[in-house]
């Protein structure tokens, strides 16, 4: 009896003292992906396709946790303050990551709180008007807005959101006076255009496609300088640069990030997993199904790009914020 007790005590001590050799292999428990956005949006949709494949690569379940609210800052703060062990990461976009935190008081330093894991893809928003407005091109619209100050309604996806920035850039560059209407996301902004409440909005090609085909939308221009060359429906739409407004330039990056303190080997492992994800045919098939493209950028590349963008956004806020 006594020997038994002694043996079990020794066994216990050994078990407790054993170096966590078997546990050293990251990841050894499920990984949580926080999305600072609501259910059913494009990030949610992307994540539903990405996480099952990522689970196979990492050998651990990857679980999505939706934490919307506070203009994206609730979920962002949660990850910024999470234990940087690599088990909590965030799937967000560049406006929430690099722009919004500079416009208000937040509890983390946006410049140093995160390390990029990967950029999945990027989209340039497109300005489109409802059919039935008395203009067919950007120049005609600007002309009309100048003759009827305050009569044109432009909807956007929310203050400092993805549709807000190009809207403000265009209004400034064109020197027009319009009525700016906020909505909560791209869906409601789209509805308002189709209902005839708003005259135009900035949105994305996948969202516009069915309505454009039905003749309900008139595309006016794509933000930035990259035309949608491969798009069957929108390949001829001019970019804002081509139309003489190079300042109307915004790209939404869909990015995975980790809290900055994550050990280098774990970060490397996560980045490698995404490199591998990007090679999987199942992943490409999923993106094709949801009508999205691939603009992969590795974490290290995006980190360099991100620092540059942050400074540009700081200038942008000054420019847009001053009326």
């Amino acid at each position, binding site marked *: 009896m006594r020997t038994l007790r002694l043996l079990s005590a020794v066994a216990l001590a050994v078990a407790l003292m054993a170096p966590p050799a078997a546990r050293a292999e990251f990841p050894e428990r499920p990984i949580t992906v926080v999305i600072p956005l*609501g*259910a*059913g*949006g494009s990030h*949610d*949709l992307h994540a*539903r*396709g990405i*996480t*099952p494949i990522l689970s196979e690569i990492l050998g651990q379940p990857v679980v*999505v946790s*939706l*934490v*919307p*609210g*506070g*203009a994206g*800052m*609730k979920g962002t*703060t*949660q990850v910024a303050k999470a234990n940087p062990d690599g088990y909590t990461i965030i799937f967000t976009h560049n406006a929430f990551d690099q722009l*919004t935190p500079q416009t*208000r*008081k937040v*509890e983390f330093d946006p410049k140093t709180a995160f390390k990029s894991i990967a950029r999945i893809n990027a989209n340039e928003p497109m300005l489109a008007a409802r059919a039935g407005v008395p203009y067919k091109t950007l120049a005609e619209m600007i002309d009309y807005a100048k003759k009827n100050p*305050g009569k044109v*309604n432009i909807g956007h996806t*929310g*203050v*400092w959101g993805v549709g807000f920035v190009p809207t403000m850039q265009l209004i400034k560059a064109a020197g027009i006076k319009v*009525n*700016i*209407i*906020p*909505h*909560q996301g791209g*869906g*409601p902004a*789209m*509805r*308002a255009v*189709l*209902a*005839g*409440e708003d005259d135009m909005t900035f949105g994305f090609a996948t*969202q516009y*496609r*069915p*309505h454009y*085909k*039905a003749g*309900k939308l008139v595309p006016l221009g794509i933000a930035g300088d990259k035309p949608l060359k491969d798009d069957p429906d929108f390949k001829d739409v001019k970019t804002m640069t081509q139309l003489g407004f190079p300042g109307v330039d915004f790209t939404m990056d869909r990015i995975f990030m980790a809290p900055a303190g994550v050990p280098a080997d774990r970060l490397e492992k996560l980045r490698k997993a995404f490199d591998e994800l990007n090679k999987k045919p199942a992943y490409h098939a*999923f993106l094709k*199904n*949801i*009508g999205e493209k691939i603009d992969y950028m590795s974490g290290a590349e995006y980190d360099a790009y991100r620092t540059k963008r942050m400074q540009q956004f700081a200038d942008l806020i000054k420019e847009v914020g001053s009326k």
Partner: protein
Amino acid sequence: MLATLGQSIELLLRWDIYLYISAGLIVGMFVGAMPGLTTILAMAVLLPISFKLEPMLGIPFLIGVYKGGIYGGSIPAILVGIPGTGASIATTFDGPPLTRQGKGRKALEMALFASVIGDVLSDILTLLLIGLIARIILLIGPPEVFAIIIFSLILIASVSGESGLKGAIAACIGVGLGFVGTESVDGEARMTFGIAALVGGIPLIPLVIGIFAMPEVLEAVESRAKSFINEAVDPSKSGEPLRWHEFKRSIRTILRSTVIGTGIGMVPGVGQVVAAFIGYSAAKRASKHPETFGKGELDGIAAPEAANNAVNGPTLVPLLTLGIPGDNITAILLGAFVAHGLRPGPQIFNEQGALIYAILIAAVLANILFVVLAYLLLKPFAKAIQLPKAYLVPVILALAFVGTLSTGSASDLGIMMVAGICAYILKKLRYDLAPLIIGFILAEPIELRLSQSILYARGDNLTFFFIERPIASFFLLAGIAWMVGMIYVRYRRRPGEAMVP
């Protein structure tokens, strides 16, 4: 059209579709019945499974989870007064009194039949009138939504509890709590008192659990009775099923609520919660014995349950015809459609008509399956409530904590407990808590829709609301008329007399 329908019916002649729907219904019902676990969460978790299935299985499976979840939310609402979802808050008026009278099973079954009838009729109406509904939905913009919400709040405050005034005060407290956190237009944080947990606003789930579960638990401890069911009730009679003559009396109420629910389903975002209350207040007004409402009236179960399920049909319309989801649940369905390569929008009925009609018909058939499944599954729930309180109260309390933690953080537990203690005090002061939570839920849309409307009005608000937007004007004037009517009734009757709005 007929050829398309023929093809749809061919698609439906497979037994495995019904197997998946049944699985969805059962999962949904159990998740819905757990306070804190929402239907939305269940659908989001199960969405990847539906990706792996073909569309004819995956989408009906998700619709099953949704329908099961909405009904599941009514189970704790009826038995212990804790709504599992926002849609079942109005069911807490008459559910617990019926349970105490030993009629818990009758109430659960009435809720089941009313839900299913409301849902089926509204689905059929939607299928027949889809073109018309799609056009009406585009007419309901920010000023209309604002006016309808204000009208509903007035109605909700007036039907709840003993005094319309206390209902109105509770609703205003709720709206005030709803303003805490990030402002809906400019996104600035306000009224957070520097508490980080409040920046995103007071989270709904801990608030609902705190407000409904905690007072219930405290009151159960306070009263020394051994069981939730009154001791005067003959135990052999408790747990009896619903009889035909009892159901027959509520048919008119169910039909009325179905029409109300289908109408309100066209208002984006706020549909189910508001529909349930308006259905309830309409039933109370039309009843020959309105004084029995709130004291254990089967009509008071039938009315909100039929109305909140009748919302389901029209909420699918913006998703299918515009490709724009009206709420979180249809947003998840959009995810399922798109992942299967189906892009809802103006052309989907031309391109994929047979499949879409087949999915819609499967949604209707899901209801019939649900009657059978739920009828069999209800008994244990109704039986469980007969257990002594000494076992039930700790279980409810544990569920309240687990439910709060399952979707939130530790700070949510604090919010739940503070809300619970405040709610207990308010309840002791004879305030009704349902208008409070409704006010809380509607605060954000009120602010957003009003801000948008003012921007559209370009400085001339009165002309905009009352002349340019006739639908908005109708609801605002109806709300004012209702309030004037209530005040008139209150002053004509002597104080102390029961007031029936």
